[in-house]
C-alpha cells in the first residue's frame, strides 16, 4: 500500500526526506554531537533503508527530490559570502598561506590517487578520489564534470572530513603544531567543512582560518582539476 502511494505521489518522497533530515538532526543533538552520527551519514542511511523497504529505485527517488539537489548548487554559490568575510585574514600572512595552498592543492589529490593506484583501482574510482579534500558541494560538481561517480565522491569526501576531524588534536600534539593559524589552515585544506566545524570548537581563530582554507581549496580545485583531468586522460 505504502509502496503504491509513494509511487503515485512522488512528492511524498520529498516529504519523507525532509522528515528523515529533521529526525537525524535530532539524533545528532541528542548524541552529544557524536561524529559517527553526523546528520549527513544517518540521514543517507535512513533514506536508503526506506527506499529498500518500500522497493523504490534510486532513479525514481532522485527525480522526486531533484529540487533539493538543485539547492546544493545554490548553497555552493552562498559559500562566497563566508569566503569574502574571511578574506582579510589572508592579507596578514599572504605569502606563506598562498604557497601552502598552491602546494597542497597539488599534493593532496596526487597522493590520494596514488595510494589507490598502487593498489590497482580502476580509473573511475581513482577519479572519485581526486576531489576528496574539497567541500562536498564542490566535489559533487567536479565529479559530474570529470566522469567520476558522484555518490561515491560524496561518501569519500564525508569520511575524509571525519578522519581529519577525529585525528586533528592528536596530530597537533604529536607533531607539536601549536600555531592556531597553521592548525586551522591545514584542517580546512584537507578536511573541508566537517573539520572546520571541529576547528571552530578549538578556537574562533582556528575556525576562521579553516573556513578560509576550505573556501580557497574548493574554489581552486574545482576550477583546476577538470582541466588537469582533461589534459591527462
Amino acid at each position, binding site marked *: 500500500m505504502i509502496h503504491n502511494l509513494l509511487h503515485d505521489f512522488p512528492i511524498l518522497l520529498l516529504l519523507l526526506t525532509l522528515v528523515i533530515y529533521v529526525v537525524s538532526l535530532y539524533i545528532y543533538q541528542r548524541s552529544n554531537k557524536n561524529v559517527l552520527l553526523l546528520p549527513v551519514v544517518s540521514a543517507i542511511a535512513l533514506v536508503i533503508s526506506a527506499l529498500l523497504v518500500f522497493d523504490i529505485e534510486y532513479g525514481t527517488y532522485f527525480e522526486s527530490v531533484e529540487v533539493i539537489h538543485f539547492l546544493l548548487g*545554490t548553497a555552493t554559490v552562498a559559500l562566497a559570502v563566508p569566503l569574502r*568575510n574571511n578574506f582579510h585574514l589572508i592579507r596578514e*600572512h599572504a605569502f606563506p598561506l598562498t604557497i601552502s595552498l598552491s602546494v597542497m592543492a597539488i599534493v593532496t589529490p596526487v597522493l590520494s590517487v596514488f*595510494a589507490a593506484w598502487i593498489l590497482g583501482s580502476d580509473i573511475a*574510482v581513482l577519479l572519485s578520489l581526486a576531489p*576528496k579534500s574539497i567541500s562536498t558541494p564542490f566535489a*559533487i560538481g567536479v565529479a559530474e564534470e570529470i566522469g567520476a561517480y558522484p*555518490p561515491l565522491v560524496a561518501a569519500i569526501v564525508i569520511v575524509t572530513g571525519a578522519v581529519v576531524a577525529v585525528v586533528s588534536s592528536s596530530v597537533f600534539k604529536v607533531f607539536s603544531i601549536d*600555531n592556531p593559524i*597553521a592548525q586551522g589552515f591545514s584542517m580546512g585544506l584537507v578536511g573541508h567543512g566537517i573539520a572546520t566545524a571541529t576547528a571552530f570548537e578549538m578556537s574562533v581563530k582556528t575556525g576562521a582560518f579553516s573556513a578560509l582554507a576550505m573556501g580557497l581549496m574548493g574554489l581552486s580545485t574545482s576550477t583546476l582539476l577538470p582541466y588537469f583531468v582533461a589534459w591527462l586522460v
Partner: protein
Amino acid sequence: MKSPPTIVDTIKRAATLIYDASWMFDAADDVKPTSTMKFILYIPLFIVFQLIGNWLKVFWDLPIPGATIGMSLLLLLLFIIPSNKNLTASAQKLLLHLPLFFIPAGVGIMNYTDVLKQDSLALFASVFGATILCFISAALFTQRLLKSEDDADKICESKT
C-alpha cells in the same frame, strides 16, 4: 472601518520589502536581521548567480562546475559592494542545512555497493592513509612557512 488591503497595497509592500533587503541598500548594514523574510529574500540572489554560472558554463563550454563559476562571480561582486548583515545571515541559514542538500546525491551510494566491496582496500588506503599523511604534511608545512615569515620580519625589524 478598515478596508482590506488592495492588490496595489500588497505589491507596494512587497516592493518595499525587496528594496529593504536588497544589496543596494547600504543602511542594511545597521539593520538587525530580525525578520525571517529579509534573509529569505537573498536566496533568489544566490539562485540567480547559480543560473548565470550554469549558463556561462554551457555558453563557453567550460569544464568547471556551473556553481563554482556562479560563486566566483558572486565573490567578485562582494568585493565591490559593502558587506551586509542580512546577506551574511542568509548565507549562514542556507549553509546550516548543507547536510540536507547532500542527501539526494549521497543516497546514490546504494547503487555502488559492488565498487565499495571490490576496491575496499584501495579506498581505505586513500581515505585514511593518504588523508592523514596529507594532513600532517599540510600542518607541518604551513607552520614552517609561517615561522620563516616571522623570522624574516624580525630580521627586517632588527635592521631598521
